[in-house]
């Protein structure tokens, strides 16, 4: 079948295939690979009905630019009239009354939304093991995690369950699973894509972004979903660019943080690929500049203080009083809160709410939250300085390939350290992409991460495309 949208789109237009055929194909694939647990729900009837409408539009020549693109969305993105749960028991049965802006924009361009995808509960996790509905499996080696939190989104693309997917990325939740499953995942600049309709985890970090098998599809999706939105006060008003107009000839200045060059804490093969990849870039005429950035040790702690603080507040609305799960044992308002939240949230979510509540508490605020805010400010300033000298900062996406299911689940700290390279982009708000360039001798893929200046999606995608061509 089709691994990218370009050819499919041509065939749809020429009538070689219909949108209904495409949907039916993916429905069959989803059914066949049900055990991967990528989808929490398949919108079979809606997808078929929409495909019929789109076939008609294609015939009439009035179809949008994503006509026939079959897309899955992470289960933290609202689709009117459809369930959305954040893979949490606390939102079991909850149906959204409105479209997320990204969904609205996809539908306007005639994409077909085929279902909602598994993820870590409220996007908290890096293995998909925190889903209340069981973890998704890595389609390359099924005893491995697919990564997270957007695990289902990565699995669906790699396993050919749809053409592209949307995920969300707060500290690596798109790029890490893209790296683990071997596809392309982009976290846009903070504010590039509207967050209206995205279940908030950490509002100043969260961004919606696409997964696909090709850089072209990522670029095409970005043209549709990005841009200002009156419903999101933090969405940028800066005009979006034509991301699909790639300039693959340009030579760039690539920044490499010296501090990573000892290879400490990075899988040997991942590291040696990284260094040879750097040499490769040089040989292709790109300039590589090493720079000192002695702040990596501060990133994960800063990230966890700030994101949990925001999460503790963002998740307060799930209280059993208004919608979603209410404990059957509740007898009054106090027990409604305590029991509904204790029973409705999973362990990791509760851990983060506790941590976030703690760092915001009177007497601890200055020592934790306030200090982390300062570190974040320093990181932003220092990164801006670096990005004045170089176009991109290149690191591996993840220090290792996908790990075994269950391997890290009881050790949150080592799980958190998986995020070392990815949290950086969210802390400073920069766009970053993971490209599936590495193949480990253990049979698993891994990604290289390219982070650019704010709103430099077009350069990142052009550069990525040039690497794609070469491989």
């Amino acid at each position, binding site marked *: 079948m089709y691994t990218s949208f370009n050819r499919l789109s041509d065939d749809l237009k020429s009538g070689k295939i219909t949108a209904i055929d495409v949907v039916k194909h993916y429905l069959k694939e989803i059914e066949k690979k049900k055990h991967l647990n990528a989808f929490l729900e398949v919108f079979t009837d809606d997808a078929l009905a929409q495909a019929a409408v789109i076939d008609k539009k294609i015939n009439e020549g009035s179809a949008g630019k994503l006509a026939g693109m079959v897309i899955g969305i992470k289960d*933290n*993105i*609202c689709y009117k009239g459809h369930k*959305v749960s*954040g893979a949490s028991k606390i*939102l079991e049965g*909850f149906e*959204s*009354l*409105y479209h*997320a802006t990204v969904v609205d924009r996809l539908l306007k361009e005639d994409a077909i939304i085929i279902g909602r995808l598994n993820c870590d509960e409220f996007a908290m996790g890096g293995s998909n093991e925190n889903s209340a509905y069981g973890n998704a499996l890595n389609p390359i080696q099924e005893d491995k995690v697919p990564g997270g939190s957007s695990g289902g989104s990565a699995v669906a693309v790699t396993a050919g369950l749809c053409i592209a997917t949307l995920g969300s990325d707060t500290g690596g939740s798109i790029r890490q699973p893209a790296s683990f499953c071997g596809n392309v995942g982009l976290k846009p600049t903070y504010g590039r894509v509207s*967050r*209206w*309709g*995205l*279940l*908030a985890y*950490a*509002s*100043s970090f969260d961004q919606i972004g696409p997964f696909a098998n090709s850089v072209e599809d990522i670029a095409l999706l970005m043209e549709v979903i990005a841009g200002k939105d*009156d*419903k*999101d*006060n*933090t969405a940028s008003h800066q005009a979006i660019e034509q991301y699909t107009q790639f300039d693959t000839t340009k030579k760039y200045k690539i920044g490499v943080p010296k501090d990573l060059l000892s290879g400490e804490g990075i899988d040997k093969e991942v590291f040696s690929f990284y260094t040879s990849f750097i040499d490769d870039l040089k040989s292709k005429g790109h300039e590589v500049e090493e720079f000192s950035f002695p702040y990596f040790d501060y990133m994960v702690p800063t990230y966890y203080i700030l994101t949990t*603080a*925001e999460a*503790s*507040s963002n*998740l*307060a*609305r*799930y*209280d059993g*009083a*208004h*919608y979603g799960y209410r404990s059957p044992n509740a007898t009054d*308002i106090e027990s409604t*809160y305590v029991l509904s939240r204790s029973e409705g949230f999973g362990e990791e979510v509760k851990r983060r709410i506790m941590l976030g*509540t703690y760092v*915001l*508490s*009177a007497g601890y*605020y200055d020592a934790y*939250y306030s200090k982390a805010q300062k570190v974040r400010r320093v990181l932003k300033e220092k990164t801006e300085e670096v990005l004045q000298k170089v176009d991109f900062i290149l690191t591996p996406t993840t220090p290792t390939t996908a790990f075994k299911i269950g391997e890290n689940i009881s050790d949150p700290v080592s799980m958190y350290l998986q995020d070392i390279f990815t949290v950086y982009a969210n802390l400073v708000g920069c766009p970053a992409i993971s490209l599936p360039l590495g193949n480990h001798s253990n049979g698993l893929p891994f990604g290289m991460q390219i982070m650019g200046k704010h709103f430099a999606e077009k350069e990142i995608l052009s550069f990525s495309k040039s690497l794609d061509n070469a491989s």
Partner: protein
Amino acid sequence: MSSIYDKYEAVIGLEVHAQLQTKSKAYSSDKNEYGATPNTNVSVVSLGHPGTLPMMNKESIRFAVKMGLACKSDITEDMIFARKNYFYADLPKGYQITQDKTPICTGGSVEIKDENGEVKHINITRIHLEEDAGKSIHDLDPYNTLIDLNRAGVPLIEIVSEPDIKSSQEAYNYLQEIRKLVRYLDICDGNMEEGSLRCDANVSVRLKGSNELGQRTETKNMNSMRNVQKAIEYEIKRQIDLIEAGEQIHMETRTFDVATGTTKSMRSKEQAHDYRYFPEPDLQPLKVSQEYVGKVKEQMPPLPKELFEKYTSSLSLSDYDANVLTETKEIALYFEEVIKSTENYKAAANWVTVNIKSFLNEQAIEIDDFSVNPKTIAEIIDLIDENKISNSVASQKIFPLIAKGSDQSPIKIAEENNWIQNSDSDAITTYVEQALSKFPDKVEEYKSGKKGLLGLFMGEVMKISGGKADPKAASAKLREILD
């Protein structure tokens, strides 16, 4: 005899919440309206549904700036919003969007009258923007608490005063001034019964002359200005009694009980919320430029204090008249229109504060529903000043006709009804002679010293003339003949 209470003085600070009457809510396009069917002005934002985000309502910023300008506060140029976190059933997001470290206005003051009628300034600590919570209704259903989220997200300003208030009367005067201001500014209807204006009182007492502050309590739930006064009075007495009995005052939140006129403990300091304020990540920092503030300043309506000063100094009106005229913006604006067309300010003030006000009272209507053009009132005043009509004809005959909707001009009405005052001396002489001829006995009495009878003769002259005789001229003629 001096009582123990005289040894103490109270230190009072008020936190006043004023609901802003913007068209839509603070962070959504939901309608901001009082009294709608429960849970009808609620979109997914007001309901706090997953994935929703706040949108900034610029109108509420403008309203807050207006209040700041009226209090001569500093307007903050760069501000951020904050979340105040707590669980409550009528707070669907689990937090309120408010301002913590960067309130929109800081400093400034409100001028009030103290207990002796002297001018006093109550300093303002800060004015910040926040959103209202919904309403929990406990008395409609015997088993359940019902929630109405129409109010959730309605914009508020909280005006926090310094502890400059020294008595319940001052607190009352301060609140009255705040209410006058928000009404003049047209940013809040100031209705305490409906909760669009709410007040929490921080009260402590100390021995007179002491510089140390006593332990304070915060009292809530007072739904009228009189209740605020009563609650503070009670609280002052309660605290003094405790101190005199050698007991301690605890820092706590208390609630006012209307039925008993007392306050009782709601929660102690130990039970106090830790609101875990932190910057609201869903709203970008907001810049209020000097230029913007300048524009708002240009649109400011006249304020009661400015008008009061104008009336008492350049118009030479009494404090009493100026007070009555500035009581509400509507009355003041009406008066302003009248004095555009007449220079007899004293008469204009009388007409507005006496004739028009009593007509409004009789009809139980507001000045907005009073249909007489202010120019017409000025015309009446001028006719009196020109001696064309008498004061009594004007107020007792012409004004009622006009107030009830006659669209004829005052002069026309006077002419048609033959009410034009006659000051022609022949006519007056005739009236006077006719009148005196009716009471020969009384004339004798008058001549022998009963000067008080002059009124009787005047009355008769007016009766005979049908009210048209110029009273001044008639009285002069009477004296001329009699004395």
